[in-house]
């Protein structure tokens, strides 16, 4: 069975799941008490204005019609009006999503490089003091919630060793790069604005680090244990007997293998990075989609909540499919299987 049909099946599945998610969110939003039109216009707005808005929001039609209209406007890109910002949710999303995206991207890079690197190091020097340090760090890292990491980093780098900024995306006085992708680091890079690039990168480091620490510890641990157990395997003994240098074995043969379970875990980890960002962005006052989602949740801004959850739902489904594809490619056993998965 080819990669293509695998992809097709997963996509079909994903669409079904997303439809289900949208129904769930729609029901939650409609079932809760409160008149959305009145809430949107405020308590002192004249009644005729509220009526007009109610008609505009289609609140007088039956539930399934409302759902159909909601979905069709969703597909056109209209996610409704946010209570807090008083502007369309999709505008808010366009503004805040790139911030979270580049934050998570940097965190993913840190956690992959760091986790895999540490894992390989610990496996190579297993049972030495280096291994011990890595293992202790791994345990502590895993049990520390992201928000505790965020506060610790805030304390260390915000006050005791103040080398990184502790809030926002860019320092006042640094000119913003023109909006190409919305990701400040990328945009500054593309336009050759080095000052802005370093500045925005520095603003990203603390939130990304806080996000990356726990999963990095986890990845290091899994990488290490998977490589350690593989080190004892027969084919490794054979390779050593043939005179292949140890480093070569580690990186060329073993890493590939150990990479598979690590990468599968990492897909879940990257998704949970977005989740952890909800609290980390709050601590660092980082204006990303997760902080927007968190504030929408705390303020019961229903349109914003369902908009953010749907965006994340679509995003996570895509990420899962992507990672599954990568794993399927890497693991010949899956790739060459003829049976369905």
């Amino acid at each position: 069975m080819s990669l293509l049909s695998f992809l097709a099946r997963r996509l079909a599945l994903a669409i079904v799941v997303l439809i289900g998610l949208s129904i769930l969110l729609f029901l939650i939003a409609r079932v809760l008490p409160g008149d959305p039109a009145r809430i949107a216009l405020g308590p002192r707005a004249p009644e005729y204005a509220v009526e007009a808005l109610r008609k505009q929001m289609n609140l007088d039609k039956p539930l399934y019609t409302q759902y159909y209209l909601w979905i069709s406007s969703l597909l056109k890109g209209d996610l409704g009006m946010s209570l807090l910002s008083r502007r369309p949710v999709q505008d808010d999303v366009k503004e805040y999503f790139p911030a979270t995206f580049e934050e998570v991207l940097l965190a993913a890079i840190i956690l992959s490089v760091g986790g895999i690197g540490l894992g390989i190091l610990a496996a190579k020097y297993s049972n030495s003091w280096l291994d011990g340090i890595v293992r202790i760090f791994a345990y502590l890292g895993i049990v520390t919630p992201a928000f505790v990491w965020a506060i610790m980093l805030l304390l260390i780098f915000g006050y005791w060793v103040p080398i990184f900024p502790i809030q926002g995306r860019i320092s006042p006085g640094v000119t913003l790069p023109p909006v190409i992708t919305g990701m400040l680091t990328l945009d500054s890079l593309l336009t050759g604005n080095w000052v802005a690039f370093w500045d925005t990168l520095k603003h990203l480091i603390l939130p990304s680090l806080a996000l990356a620490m726990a999963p990095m510890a986890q990845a290091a641990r899994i990488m290490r244990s998977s490589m350690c157990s593989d080190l004892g395997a027969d084919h490794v003994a054979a390779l050593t007997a043939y005179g292949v240098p140890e480093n070569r074995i580690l990186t060329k043969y073993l890493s590939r293998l150990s990479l598979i379970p690590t990468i599968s875990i990492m897909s879940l980890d990257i998704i949970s990075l977005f989740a952890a960002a909800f609290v980390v962005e709050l601590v660092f006052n980082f204006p990303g989609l997760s902080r927007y989602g968190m504030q929408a949740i705390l303020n019961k801004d229903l349109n914003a909540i369902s908009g953010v959850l749907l965006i994340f739902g679509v995003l996570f489904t895509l990420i899962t499919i992507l990672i599954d594809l990568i794993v399927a490619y890497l693991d010949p056993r899956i790739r060459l299987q003829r049976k369905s998965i």
Partner: protein
Amino acid sequence: MKTFNLNATWNSVKRSIYKFSRNKISVVGFFMVLFVVIVAIFAPFLAPYPKHAGAFVDYKNASQPPSLAHPFGTDVFGRDILSRVMFAFRGALIMGLGVIAMIVPIGVFVGLIAGYYRGTWIDTVIMRITDIFITLPALILALAVAALLRPTLFNSMMAVAFAWWPWYARLTYGMASSVRNEVFVQAAETTGASKAHIIFKEILPNCLAPIFTKMALEIGWVILVGATLSFVGLGEQPPTPALGTMVSDGAKYLPHQWWISLFPALAIMFIILAFNLFGDGVRDMLTTEEV
């Protein structure tokens, strides 16, 4: 494949305990968990100022750094932090154990049904429903649900349970659907055993090991999600102490009054570490290595 037979004799139980005790780290974990449980249960007797965990304020004594009278210092309301941390262990334990106790029966039951009826529409419907839930990470779903309800301990437990149960359903489904095709199950069917008997007496016992393992390992994570919820204000309300709330309250006063955040944060890490080590030990105990 790693398997375990739960039709235990007393000897095999003794063997498992012995095996557990050989692993030093797991034993440490066990005693840490024991410590947490004892502190939680006996907090009113162990805490130096049990009244401070209730409706109590003393602004003259506010923001005192750690001292002999107050080993963890006092918070901005004048309450002893050590006593409050001890009482906060209760909320954490109730969250961890309570949520697991809620979702395991439900999740396992649903998974069993889906696994037994594997290949039929029942299976497809149930699995698609769980798919919807696991699209979003548990934390995000729990946050959204908790925010829509009134903030109490029970509601935050409900929110976490709502987000977490599908994982047990899927795990059980995986095990059940493979066990379902085993020979002894088919034998039972042929001899006319009822569906209930097959599901609960034949299939279930063979799924238990991974379920128990997952339970033991996950208590720590549930507590972590609970702490995150209370960090943003969605758990117990004052004056009841909650570890996440104490950390977020103290964060306002960094770096000058560092003790208000630090000790609850260390307590969170301690509890999660305890359950993690213990859970690792349980996992090692319940699985046998294949040579």
